[in-house]
């Protein structure tokens, strides 16, 4: 019998959780105990057996503590050309002393903002890991961008993770963006150890009327990292939220991304690339909820899978009865570079309104041999030709990254991985 399915494994986490956010924690715990850790056959976790993975990898299911990060570590983690503000975290704990202060933006530890409505966007009842985080997170960050402010410089959420005993890191992020405000976040984690640890992250974003929010994320952690994240956002009238998620490594990664379109003329964009090798397993579960008429959602995820890697894509589009004149587009394309790589892709459409434009498509294929030969016949070596084709495949998503230095950083990482520069 696995130890994780016996829920007392989690008692250590509950016991170590602080006293603040008392009622929120209690409802999180209750919700977690109701749902339990996903069983092997659980529909939502069918292709991603996270329970077994945790059982095998973690020897000590307890809370990871913050540790000291040096300014030089922060400096060397910044990618070339980055000109923005940095918020630093160690095992999920916010480190104000190493972080920028950003004019016009309120930033504090969650523990200093007890009135925050944690769990009101990423609801504990929807996912056991969101519930677990809500029950037992230690501290986190509160970010508030005031009304009408245009934050020109990107804000980098830079997390350092380090565990030797295979513990649990539970970042908790609350972002609120006022009406008509504009801001770009870059979410990046750095592994300081190669040993197994579990990150269980929750990010809630509350976007105001006519706000414009970009949330870029790079997952390029140690090869033994196990990660579950729940990122959820409420998008109000005339507002736009764009997520670009780049997954390059890890052991098992599960991303739950949910966009709630709550006001007319709102726009939700979900873009992603997963470029995987070794035995990395990345599961992107996305969910867009069209609750009102005249809102648009666009989704494009592209996967390149080598070796024995595995990709899972599940894209849910939920169009409620009132949500007439919805435009919802979804596309997932995959290239398998090896016979041992696997992709499971599934669109999941639930449409209750009758006047909607909705399209979806998914493909799983190999590298186009015709194209490869064509390029080689012009003198390009095989590696460059492959790289050029794969890069072109991913490029359609990468060009959605509007922050130039981050775009270049991701392009460099991907070209390096693809084995050529051009």
């Amino acid at each position, binding site marked *: 019998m696995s130890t994780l399915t016996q829920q007392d494994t989690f008692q250590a986490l509950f016991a170590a959780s602080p006293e603040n956010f008392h009622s929120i924690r209690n409802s999180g715990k209750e919700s977690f105990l109701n749902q339990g850790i996903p069983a092997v056959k659980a529909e939502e976790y069918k292709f991603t057996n996270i329970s077994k993975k945790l059982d095998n990898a973690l020897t000590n299911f307890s809370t990871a503590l913050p540790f000291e990060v040096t300014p030089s570590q922060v400096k060397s983690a910044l990618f070339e050309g980055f000109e923005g503000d940095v918020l630093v975290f160690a095992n999920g704990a916010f480190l104000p002393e190493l972080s920028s202060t950003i004019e016009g933006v309120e930033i504090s530890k969650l523990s200093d903002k007890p009135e925050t409505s944690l769990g009101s966007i990423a609801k504990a009842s929807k996912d056991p890991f969101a519930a677990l985080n809500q029950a037992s997170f230690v501290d986190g960050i509160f970010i508030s961008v005031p009304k009408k402010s245009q934050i020109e410089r990107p804000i980098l959420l830079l997390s350092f993770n380090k565990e030797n005993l295979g513990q649990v890191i539970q970042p908790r992020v609350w972002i609120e963006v006022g009406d008509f405000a504009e801001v770009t976040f870059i979410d990046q984690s750095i592994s300081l150890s190669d040993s197994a640890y579990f990150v269980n992250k929750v990010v809630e974003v509350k976007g105001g009327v006519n706000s414009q929010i970009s949330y870029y994320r790079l997952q390029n952690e140690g090869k033994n990292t196990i990660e579950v994240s729940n990122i959820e956002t409420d998008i109000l009238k005339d507002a736009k939220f764009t997520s670009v998620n780049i997954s390059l490594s890890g052991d098992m990664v599960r991303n739950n991304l949910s966009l709630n379109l709550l006001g007319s003329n709102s726009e939700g964009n979900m873009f992603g690339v997963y470029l995987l090798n070794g035995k990395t397993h990345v599961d992107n579960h996305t969910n867009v909820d069209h609750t009102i008429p005249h809102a648009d959602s666009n989704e494009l995820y592209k996967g390149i899978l080598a070796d024995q890697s595995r990709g899972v894509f599940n894209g849910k589009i939920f169009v409620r009865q009132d949500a007439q004149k919805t435009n919802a587009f979804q596309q997932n394309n995959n290239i398998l570079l090896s016979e041992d790589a696997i992709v499971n892709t599934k669109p999941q459409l639930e449409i209750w309104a009758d006047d909607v434009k909705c399209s979806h498509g998914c493909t799983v294929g190999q590298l*186009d*041999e*015709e*194209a490869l*030969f*064509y*390029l*080689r*016949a*012009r*003198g*390009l*070596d*095989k590696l*460059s*030709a492959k790289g*050029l*084709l794969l*890069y*072109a*495949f991913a*490029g*359609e998503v990468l060009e959605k990254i509007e922050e130039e230095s981050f775009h270049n950083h991701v392009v460099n990482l991907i070209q390096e991985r693809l084995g050529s520069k*051009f």
Partner: protein
Amino acid sequence: MLSIKNLHASIEGNEILRGINLEVKAGEVHAIMGPNGSGKSTLASVLAGREEYEVTEGEVIFQGKDLLELAPEDRAREGVFLAFQYPVEIPGVSSTNFLRTALNQVREYRGQEPLDAVKFLSLMKEKMALVEIDQKLLSRSLNEGFSGGEKKRNEIFQMAMLEPVLSILDETDSGLDIDALRIVSNGVNKLKSDKTATIVVTHYQRLLDYIVPDYVHVLYKGRIVKSGTKELALELEEKGYDWIKEEVDSAATV
């Protein structure tokens, strides 16, 4: 320059080329004609190094080197150029970027300095004029959404950029209107010299009014069954291929 001896090649166990012999010298133009399905494109592809085809017998020597031993990119770098019958559309790959990378890899192999952006652009301008290709086409993804004629013109443009020793044009004329045919042929003729050779694979004699061949060969069922001069092409134009098929097929049944 090129010497093909008893070349046999198959795909998926079917023998398509069944003993090709061909000698091409510098300065020559050879036309290869023949009915559909006779193996013309297969021959062109085998020379360029397409890996799906298995060479089961024979040899190909190009400028003293065993061509069949070389990877496709090395054949290109040695100076073999294939203008594809069906150029491939490659979304997301910019024509200019790709050509610059290709050209510089070719130059590196030939021991030449890489071209910087400025020199590359001026070379491009010069060659664009040669084949009268529009800059707009080249700022798009490689061949993506190009018309048939635009694709063929782009092939000749790439040929002009890479300055091959041996050019193999696989039905570059098919689908072109007279104006386009003239432009393309003009480009090919200007690139010819006494140090280069051209193999034109075609279905129609029409092209040979513009690119005048020294020799015409008829390929049928994987063999060169007849060779002659440009008059042979005119004869084929007039009489079709049936008489050749009959000749070959009756000889085979004897």
